[in-house]
């Protein structure tokens, strides 16, 4: 069964976060979510717009909703938390008649429908759920160690974003666990990475990204898994700049959670889009396979030991002087025990 929902890709999906865009679409399709893109959408204005004026920012978002209305779309989802915050602030703000009138004075396109907007992550976690996601996994990511990094805006402020615990969200943790990932507790999961100042305040911004990457590396993570195009670009593309300040020597891949989903679902490599990351996934995937092989060997060894112990116990239970038949039965049980 397919559910149809409005979709706002956000500008970064056309360039810097094209792998997020492609993997999001692929994952949603494979989970039965049919995305209807808003026609001829514009930029929400991101951080720059709301630092200039809240009505201007809301007007840019309001044109997006007006475009949605032209296609009969009311409910919208978006992968980008920064877009989401602006779209939400627009809808929440326009509940106030004066604010709505000021926005309409700029757009001259009043809205007529009741709209809602949520993040793709929230829909996957709350509507689809980890069980359904786990059921879709073809290539489990067992052996992969990752820290979940939600970024500052996905859950904050709680009253605007209305998703999960604002300070210690667990939705992305559960989703990654459903893929088989070993999720490490990450105390900085909602701390700011400084992305919006990466260009104009280069003396300040790398400190914030550095804290996040340093901690992830020291916890032994292979990956920092993200859900925000601004965080991703900051922590991945700018990792070399950040390390030049912090002196770190790690190379941490920073994939979007949707890329890991596409990979785990067994979708084509082009949908997972690992080749688009600045820091490659290959070392992390190799470590994952090594750990999986080690774990399997360990399990085989333990199973063999268990079989030996069981055999000894069975011998004790039987007569003190083993009969020839019992010995023969033990020989048969040997390889079978190894397989268990």
């Amino acid at each position, binding site marked *: 069964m397919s559910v149809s929902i409005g979709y706002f890709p956000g500008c970064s999906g056309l360039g*810097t976060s094209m792998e997020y865009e492609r993997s999001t679409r692929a994952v949603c399709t494979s989970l039965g979510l049919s995305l209807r893109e808003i026609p001829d959408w*514009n*930029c929400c204005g991101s951080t*720059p717009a709301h630092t200039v004026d809240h009505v201007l920012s809301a*007007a840019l978002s309001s044109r997006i909703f007006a475009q949605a209305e032209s296609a009969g779309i009311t409910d919208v989802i978006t992968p980008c938390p920064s877009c989401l915050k602006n779209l939400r602030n627009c809808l929440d703000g326009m509940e106030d008649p004066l604010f709505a009138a000021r926005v309409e004075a700029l757009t001259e396109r009043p809205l007529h429908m009741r709209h809602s907007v949520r993040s793709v992550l929230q829909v996957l976690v709350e509507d689809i759920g980890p069980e359904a996601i786990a059921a879709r996994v073809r290539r489990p990511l067992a052996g992969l160690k990752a820290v979940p990094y939600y970024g500052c805006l996905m859950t904050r402020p709680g*009253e605007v974003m209305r998703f999960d615990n604002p300070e210690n969200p667990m939705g992305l943790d559960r989703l990654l666990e459903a893929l088989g990932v070993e999720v490490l507790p990450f105390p900085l999961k909602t701390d700011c990475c*400084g992305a919006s*100042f990466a260009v104009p*305040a280069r003396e300040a911004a790398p400190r*914030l990204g550095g804290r996040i990457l340093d901690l992830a590396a020291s916890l032994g993570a292979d990956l920092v898994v993200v859900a925000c195009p601004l965080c991703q670009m900051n922590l991945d593309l700018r990792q070399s700049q950040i390390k030049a300040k912090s002196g770190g020597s790690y190379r941490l891949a920073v994939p979007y959670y949707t890329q890991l989903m596409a990979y785990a679902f067994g979708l084509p490599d082009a949908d997972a889009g690992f080749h688009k990351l600045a820091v490659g996934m290959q070392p992390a995937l190799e470590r994952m396979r090594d750990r999986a092989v080690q774990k399997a060997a360990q399990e085989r060894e333990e199973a063999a030991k268990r079989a030996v112990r069981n055999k000894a116990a069975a011998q004790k239970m039987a007569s003190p002087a083993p009969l020839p038949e019992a010995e023969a039965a033990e020989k048969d049980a040997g390889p079978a025990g190894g397989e268990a």
Partner: protein
Amino acid sequence: MDTIYLNSPDSLFIREVEEESGQVLSRCYQCGNCTAGCPMAFSFDSPVSRIMRLIQAGQKEAVLSSRAVWLCASCETCTQRCPNTIDVARIMDVCRHMARREKKSGIYAVKVFFDSFLLAVERHGRPHELGIMALFMARTGRFWTDLDLAPTMLTKGKMALLPHNVEGRGEVAEIFRRFRDGASDAALVKALRGGRAATAPGGPGMRERGVSEEKSGEGLA
């Protein structure tokens, strides 16, 4: 920092911040929780809790010429953690709006970056990274900005050479033009609506933060 003259508070400034942010400033009792959680505090000249105190004391000049209002990353940690549910990040945003209106130079590079971004949106309907960076470099003279990243971005196919034009970009440009012409001015819109919204709260923040009863009560009194 400079001496603060408490005998000359700018009460108009205090009222403006309250109206534009929809927040009640007297709720701040200086617990410092906002500053404790602020990730940019190390780069601020006045930490955010001190900015709050300066606003309460009506120190317009000190607030609007601070570096802090330009370096706030809008990460919303302060808003989330305020025990008195003050939307602190919104107040920082509003101070930044006022600093622009008062033509404060602020932190030039930050202002230029945001302006360059919005100019691209105004022209094309969507930002164009290469154009934004070119404009930023030309205006700030920082010609080396992120040149180290260009090879990776190009080989990964992530840097569009041409802008992504929106068909309705004329409509988006009109939004900016009307904004510059003052079409969204609160007093003007109120007057045009025939005073129907005269007692409505000033912004979205107030309703969200649950203080609308107090404020609209004042308005009716």
